[in-house]
C-alpha cells in the first residue's frame, strides 16, 4: 500500500519543510500520495502536484480548514488512511499537534521525529534530547510517522504533474475555535532552513543587547536563534528558540554567543556543520561541541567580530 503525506502550507504556498517530508516519505514507499487540507488552497495544491515524487494529490477544502485546527484535520485524514500503509508529516508544531490525534484514532503507536528511514517499518530516532539514538520497528499495520525535516533533504520542487483529486471534507469540530495567530514577520531567512544561524543566550543580558546578534545576522544573511534562557528572560520571542523543545536547526554555520550549552540547547543545534562559540566561561559545555571556541567577553568580542566581517566585505567588494 502507498504512503500518504500530509502537506503543510499556509493556503497559498507549501511550507518549505513539506519538501523534506516528501523525501522521507518516499523512502518508505515510492508510491507516494499527498493530501492538502485547507481553504482556497488551490495554488498550494498545484505546487504539491508539481513535486515529481508525488504520484497523486488529494485536495480537501472547507472554511473550517482555514486555520489548521487538528480536531478538524484528523477525521478526514483518518478516513483517507484506510487506503494507505503510512501517514507521514513533519515533526514541527503543525505535525506534532496533529499526528498523535490521527494515530490514536487509528489505534497506532506513533513513531515521532525520525531522522532516518532504515526500511518501511524501521526508523532511527533521537531520544533523551539526542543523547541516544534508538532504532525502532513499528509493528502496527498502519504506521504514523513524523519526520525531523532537517534530517532529510528537500525533494525536487518542479517538473511533476500529478493528478489532483478532490475529497469530501469532514464535519467541523465545534468545541475548538481559532482566535488569532501572531506571526513574527521577518525579511531574514527562516530559522529552520537558514544556511547561517546566529544565536544569543542568557549572556546577552538584555533584549536590547540582542542588536549585536542582529548586526552579525545582517552581515551573514543569517537567521536569529536563542537559547530557552534568553526567551524565558524576555530578550526575544519564542519563535527563535533552538533546542529540545524549540526548533532543531542544522545550518552550515551556527554561532552561539553567550550560550552556556545546556543539554536541551545542544539537542537543537549540535548537528550543525560548523559551530562557533563565544563565551567568557571557558568551562561552558558549548565548547565541547564547538569547532571554533573563543573564550572572551562577548561585549568586547562581538563588536570586533562585526568589524572583522565588515573588513572582509570590503575586501570582497
Amino acid at each position, binding site marked *: 500500500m502507498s504512503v500518504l503525506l500530509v502537506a503543510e502550507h499556509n493556503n497559498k504556498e507549501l511550507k518549505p519543510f513539506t519538501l523534506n517530508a516528501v523525501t522521507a516519505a518516499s523512502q518508505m514507499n515510492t508510491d507516494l500520495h499527498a493530501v492538502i487540507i485547507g481553504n482556497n488552497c488551490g495554488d498550494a495544491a498545484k505546487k504539491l502536484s508539481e513535486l515529481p515524487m508525488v504520484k497523486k494529490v488529494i485536495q480537501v477544502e472547507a472554511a473550517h480548514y482555514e486555520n489548521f485546527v*487538528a480536531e478538524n484535520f484528523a477525521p478526514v485524514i483518518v478516513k483517507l488512511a484506510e487506503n494507505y500503509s503510512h501517514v507521514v508529516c513533519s515533526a*514541527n*508544531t*503543525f505535525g*506534532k499537534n*496533529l*499526528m*498523535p*490525534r*490521527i494515530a*490514536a484514532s487509528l*489505534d*497506532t*503507536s*506513533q513513531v*515521532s*521525529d525520525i531522522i532516518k528511514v532504515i526500511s518501511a517499518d524501521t526508523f532511527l530516532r533521537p*531520544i*533523551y*534530547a539526542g*543523547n*541516544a*539514538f*534508538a*532504532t*525502532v520497528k513499528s*509493528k502496527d499495520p498502519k504506521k504514523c510517522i513524523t519526520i525531523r525535516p532537517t534530517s532529510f533533504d528537500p525533494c525536487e520542487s518542479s517538473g511533476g504533474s500529478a493528478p489532483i483529486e478532490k475529497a469530501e471534507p469532514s464535519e467541523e*469540530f*465545534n*468545541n*475548538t475555535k*481559532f*482566535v*488569532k*495567530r*501572531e506571526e513574527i514577520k521577518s525579511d531574514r531567512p527562516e530559522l*529552520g532552513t537558514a544556511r*547561517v544561524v546566529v544565536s544569543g543566550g542568557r549572556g546577552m543580558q538584555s533584549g536590547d543587547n540582542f542588536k549585536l546578534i542582529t548586526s552579525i545576522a545582517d552581515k*551573514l544573511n543569517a537567521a536569529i536563534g536563542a537559547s530557552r534562557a534568553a526567551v*524565558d528572560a524576555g530578550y526575544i*520571542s*519564542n*519563535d527563535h528558540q533552538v533546542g*529540545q*523543545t524549540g526548533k532543531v536547526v542544522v545550518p552550515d*554555520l551556527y554561532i552561539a554567543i553567550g550560550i552556556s550549552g545546556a543539554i*536541551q540547547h545542544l539537542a537543537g543545534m*549540535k548537528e550543525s556543520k560548523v*559551530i*562557533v562559540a563565544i563565551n567568557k566561561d571557558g568551562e561552558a559545555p558549548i*565548547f565541547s*561541541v564547538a*569547532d*571554533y*571556541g*573563543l573564550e*572572551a567577553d562577548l561585549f568586547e568580542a562581538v563588536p*570586533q*567580530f562585526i568589524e*572583522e566581517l565588515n573588513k572582509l566585505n570590503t575586501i570582497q567588494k
Partner: protein
Amino acid sequence: MKILVAVKRVIDYNVQVRVKEDNTGVVTENVKMSTNPPDDNAIEEAVKIKESGKATEVVAVSVGEEKAQETVRKALAVGADRGILINADGILEPLAVSKLLQKIVEKEKPDLVFMGKQAIDDDCNQTGQMLSALLNWPQATFASKIEIKDKKLEVTREIDEGLETIEINIPAIVTCDLRLNEPRYASLPNIMKAKKKPIEQINASDLGVDTSPRIEQIKVEEPPKRKAGIKVKSVAELVQKLKNEAKVI
C-alpha cells in the same frame, strides 16, 4: 471544576544520559529521577487555578512502576489534593498511557486534563493529543497562557511561526509549555502534609487496557560524536579560520 494532571517520572533534566553497553537502552540505575519538567508547569497551573477559586480539586495521576509514587507525592507537596498511581511495568508507549488515562478520566470525570507537552525521555510529544482524540475532546497543545472564561478556555499556544490563540470548550486537554508559569518549590511543611494525602493505587491490568508495546526497540546507541574542536585566541583568528579553513563565510 476538577482538574486532572498527568505527571511522568523521568531521568532528571540535568543528568548526562548514558547508553547501556549492551545497547538495550539507557542507564537508569543509580540515576537521579524527577518529574518531567513541563509536567511541573502543568501541576503549577492547576494549583494556581484552584487558588484563584476557579477549581475545587486537583488530582495528580502517574503511570509507571512503584517508584513513580514519588512523582505523585511531589505533585501533592506543591498543592494537588490527592493522587492516583497506575501501576505498570516495562516500556509504556504514549498510546498505552493515553488509553490508561482515558479510563481514569471516565472514572474521575474531570473538567480539564493538564500535562506537559513532551516528556524529556522519549521526546514523543503524543500523550495529550492521543488522549484528546480518544475522548473526542478539544486539545490545546504547547500552551504558554491559559485564561478561564466560564465554560471555555482561551489558550495561547507556542507554534513555529510565533503564537496562536484558540478558544476551547470544557472539558478539554491542555499540554503545557515550560513558559506557562514558574513552578514553585515544595516547602518542608507541605512536603510533610503531602505524606498524609491519599494516593490510590490501581493496577494497569485491572483497567482492561492492552499496554503491550507496538514498537520494537531494536537497539539504542550513542549518537555519533563530533570531532573535538579548537579554541582560537582572538576574533581575527576566528574570522580567518571561518573564511579559509571552514570556508563558511
